[in-house]
């Protein structure tokens, strides 16, 4: 079918210059049907828009469910609170092009090359849309933040800090970490009044933790199934009722390796403290050598003074902290343990301990629950460049992945395909009914 179409396209080349609906439909079909990407099917599925270059707006209504309180006769009842938030966004026009030599159709290799280039366009566009879904999930408003702002409690900060410390590198700290995280999130979302989540998006490396547990790698105890499992490797499509979606790495920065959005660098800090008087050395862990190394008191002293080792040199140091420069002689006395010295504490700071860390996203995907990848106004346009002896195709389209974070059900999906007048009528009817 494709080959016939290509030949037809080639032999009618002069006729096909400019926008080409036939090829556009084929490429559209390949993108939406053939790629079957979990990001644009499970999480934020494709949703076609006839006029995507206009503003997209949506409202989120929040109705808090409260408990009725006792009310005396002839007095006012407590009013329930409600909230409306409005959001808006635009789809973005994007495009890609391919070029071929004029006479590529004369050979079967040229035909094959053309077919591969079309697939390349399809793959690239799907890749772009996948990235957009990643970014939409990352930048979507966090309901957790809203909860914090609205129900901030006195001890919340301490609890949040404790939670973060406990879950920092949790997968390496606890064998059942993923189970705990998933069940914890389910419970959290349920507490918000959300729907049971159905997908878990995480880095490919994090999936190892799900597939390499002791139960799943006990090949010897599972007989023939165990041998098959060892041969094929443990796979993981579903886990605790969640579809596992592996996040992708994208080439986002010029000249650097593709980057996984759910993998990031994090700096955290530590401090070490003890008495300075009579100090000989401090042993600290060095992650470069994976061992404890000694930091001598002379090295500490030389870090405090600009040159030499005498106290008078250090006082002239302009960058030195006042708390050091004002007391440099006393610090030296304290270090040497001279009689009558002042009691200093030594504070060692390590504020930039940096590691790569992995994250995950859990949610309920789909248009009805989370959002959509809006797209439309696609156009495959054919051009001919006689001067350079090439012809090519340009594919342009509108696209934007959006998380309508708290959107429940889009009851007026029909608005996309109906005209404005119909929308007006529907809403007028609704308003009249209200």
């Amino acid at each position, binding site marked *: 079918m494709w080959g016939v179409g290509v030949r037809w396209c080639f032999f009618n080349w002069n006729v096909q210059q400019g926008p080409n609906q036939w090829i556009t439909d084929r490429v559209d079909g390949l993108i939406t049907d053939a790629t079957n990407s979990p990001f644009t099917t499970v999480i934020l599925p494709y949703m076609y828009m006839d006029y995507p270059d206009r503003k997209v707006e949506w409202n989120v209504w929040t109705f808090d469910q409260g408990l009725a309180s006792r009310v005396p006769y002839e007095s006012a009842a407590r009013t329930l609170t409600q909230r409306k938030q409005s959001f808006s966004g635009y789809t973005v026009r994007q495009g890609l092009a391919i070029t071929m030599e004029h006479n590529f159709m004369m050979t079967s290799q040229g035909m094959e090359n053309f077919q591969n280039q079309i697939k390349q366009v399809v793959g690239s566009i799907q890749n772009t849309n996948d990235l957009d879904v990643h970014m939409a999930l990352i930048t979507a408003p966090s309901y957790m933040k809203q909860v914090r702002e609205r129900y901030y409690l006195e001890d919340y900060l301490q609890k949040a800090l404790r939670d*973060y410390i406990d879950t920092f590198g949790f997968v390496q700290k606890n064998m059942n970490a993923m189970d705990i995280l998933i069940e914890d999130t389910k419970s959290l979302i349920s507490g918000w*009044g959300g729907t049971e989540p159905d997908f878990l998006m995480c880095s490919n490396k994090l999936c190892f933790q799900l597939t390499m547990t002791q139960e799943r790698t006990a090949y010897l105890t599972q007989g023939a199934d165990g041998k098959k499992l060892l041969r094929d490797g443990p796979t993981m499509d579903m886990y605790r009722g969640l579809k596992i979606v592996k996040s992708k790495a994208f080439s986002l920065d010029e000249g650097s390796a593709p980057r996984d*959005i759910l993998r990031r660098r994090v700096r955290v800090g530590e401090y070490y403290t003890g008495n300075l008087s009579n100090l000989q050395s401090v042993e600290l862990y060095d992650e470069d050598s994976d061992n404890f190394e000694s930091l001598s008191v002379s090295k500490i002293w030389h870090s405090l003074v600009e040159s030499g080792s005498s106290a008078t040199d250090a006082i002239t140091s302009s960058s030195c902290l006042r708390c050091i420069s004002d007391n440099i002689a006393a610090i030296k006395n304290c270090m040497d343990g001279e009689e009558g010295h002042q009691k200093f504490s030594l504070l060692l700071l390590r504020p930039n*301990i940096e590691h790569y*860390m992995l994250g995950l996203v859990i949610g309920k995907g789909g248009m009805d*629950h989370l959002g959509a990848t809006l797209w439309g106004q696609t156009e495959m346009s054919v051009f001919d460049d006689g001067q350079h002896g090439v012809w090519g195709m340009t594919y342009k389209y509108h696209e934007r992945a959006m998380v309508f974070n708290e959107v429940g059900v889009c009851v007026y999906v029909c608005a996309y395909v109906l005209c404005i007048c119909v929308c007006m009528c529907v*809403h007028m009817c609704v308003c009249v009914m209200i």
Partner: protein
Amino acid sequence: MCVYVCAYVCVCYDLRTDNETKQRNLHRIWDVAYDGYCGGKDMSVMKWSDSGVEEYIEKCNNVNTNFDGASIICVPILTEECFKSPMPLCNYQDKGTKLLATSDLHIHDIQNYASKQISCNITREALAQVHKTLQMHNDYQIVKDACEAVGVGETTQCRLLYKGTSNFKFKDATNKQTFGCGHHGHDYVGVAAVRNGKSLMAATAPHINISTVDSGAASKPKA
């Protein structure tokens, strides 16, 4: 009603919610697994000199690449008061500064938090000096949380310092050992593999209780 209709005319696509449902269907959990060490936990010491401070500030502010500056900052403080973990490294006088505490939670009221964590004025002043001298305030850029930083490939910086693993050795052959309690927990030889995402953290060996029962005492009649 007229106003409503007019407003709607302006909006061609209005994705409206079902009023009956209130669904919050997305939750992000950051930093749940280690995937490699970048820097900042070696034995290099920052020098309190013009060039040393300048170099440190430059390395510290480069949040687009792995940290390769000096790891340790030495600050002698004239106090005998204990330091409480976590210790906020910030300017305690500045009311406008906010501090990233977790992956996406900021502390806005630093003064209130600091008063709970550090009661010693000398310590506070010293930390404020460190913060100011090393330009850790980052006034020229927005303090990003995980969601904002990950999109542009930047590192987030948490200025809440937790007590780390250390052993202070003194000239009189005594020592003071401290166990780490922060993000990374306790340090031990071999933990680098854990923080490279290739191993699980070693669980503490179960404590062995030894009790001795005197059989004679058990058979002895009560008085």
